């Protein structure tokens, strides 16, 4: 029962949504819209699981005094403060509390809400900076690991060279005086529009077939990984 009910639900809704695609009748469309609404509401609850999992990990870390447990306080406190500020003070539209605080303390902020101040000056800079570290690591990796050991590596390397030079203004400047067909930016456009596009299309079609196969396996109950372990 514990596996049969969910498998039946997946089968019924999967088949119904496939069939619905081909039926433009108003009843079918009404049902389709209602199901989409339901899906949106159900998915909203998944975030609760993600948050609770994170909180549990950090509380455990603090309780058992694992390495770096002090930093878990930073996570928990910043999480709580940001959530309280956002829920009580408003996300994109200030609540009455925020409006009163701004007027009372004469806060000069450009953003509408305190949550957006936190987002603009803490989350955006840190998120962008975290990923910008990759610029350094990719340069280091390219220096150490990108070796032309065989024919396929040479093809990859040469294409990367041409694209990296041709997609920046300096590459266009270098070959400016050459005939159009030999100009780097035109060579790059040709590579991207033909051989690259052909391989990407082949990969894409393979991915599409895989997606359809997996979807059908889920609907037919062959693929049951989403049910988790146990009975």
């Amino acid at each position: 029962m514990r596996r049969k009910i969910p498998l039946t639900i997946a089968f019924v809704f999967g088949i119904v949504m496939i069939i619905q695609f081909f039926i433009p009748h108003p009843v079918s469309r009404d049902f389709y819209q209602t199901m989409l609404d339901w899906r949106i509401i159900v998915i909203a609850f998944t975030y609760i699981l993600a948050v609770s999992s994170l909180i549990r990990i950090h509380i455990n870390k603090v309780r058992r005094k694992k390495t770096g447990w002090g930093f878990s306080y930073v996570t928990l406190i910043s999480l709580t403060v940001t959530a309280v500020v956002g829920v009580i003070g408003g996300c994109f539209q200030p609540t009455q509390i925020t409006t009163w605080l701004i007027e009372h303390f004469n806060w000069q902020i450009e953003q509408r809400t305190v949550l957006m101040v936190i987002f603009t000056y803490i989350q955006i800079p840190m998120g962008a900076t975290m990923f910008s570290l990759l610029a350094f690591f990719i340069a280091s990796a390219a220096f150490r690991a990108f070796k032309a050991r065989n024919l396929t590596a040479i093809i990859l390397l040469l294409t990367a060279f041409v694209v990296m030079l041709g997609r920046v203004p300096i590459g266009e400047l270098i070959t400016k005086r050459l005939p159009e067909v030999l100009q780097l930016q035109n060579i790059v456009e040709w590579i991207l529009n033909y051989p690259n596009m052909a391989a990407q299309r082949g990969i894409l079609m393979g991915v599409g077939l895989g997606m359809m196969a997996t979807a059908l396996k889920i609907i037919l109950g062959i693929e049951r990984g989403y049910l988790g372990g146990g009975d």
Partner: protein
Amino acid sequence: MKERKGLIIGSVILLIIFIGMLIKGEPSKSILVWIAALLTLFIYSFLYRDNIFYKFAEHLFVGVSVGYGISVYWQNAFIRKVFDPLFITKTYIVDGQFHLWPLLAIVIPTLMGLLMLSIFTKKQAWLIRIPIAFVVGMSAGISVPSTFQAYIFEHTKNTLYITLSISSFIMIVGVITTLVYFFFSKEHKGLLGKTANIGIWFIMIAFGASFGYTVMARISLLIGRMNFLLYDWLGVIK
């Protein structure tokens, strides 16, 4: 010893450059910009070595991100789709008349969503499979016809638009040989093997292009942060 010497010399040079920029530029008067810049530098300190400043910034980032997510989910999803229709706008009451189905259309998915919380119990944890099966089954059903149309049909159609040009020929050969390469049900020997080998060349060209673009993307991220530090924070550039 050598490393410590290098660190001291490097820090002094950076400090001199920083003071020079402060004097020459027009640093921001906003404390918030200074906080953002400080957190940026905390994260960049990881490039030298993992340290407490980086760890602090990393944990702060995780906390703020999740807190922001809670706020947005609460305001945009729960309040707009569940709380308001149920208790404020009462979409199930039309022209003073009560309608059962619009009420159920909010209550049923809400109850299904609440079943997700059964994961926190020991005996009833299996109930989480119900909302998951609903979402997964629906997603699978919705995706089948759309995937066929968008990924298979359109691209097959366009591949078969043959023109009398070398480029068109290269395109068709590339698509077919790439697909052959990913056909693993038969061993890549003989004609199949040779075709798959040609497919590998096309795939290498695609990966080379992707690598070139990836380098471009990563450098762009660094450029964005450099622009923030030099323009918004230190005011050294226009």
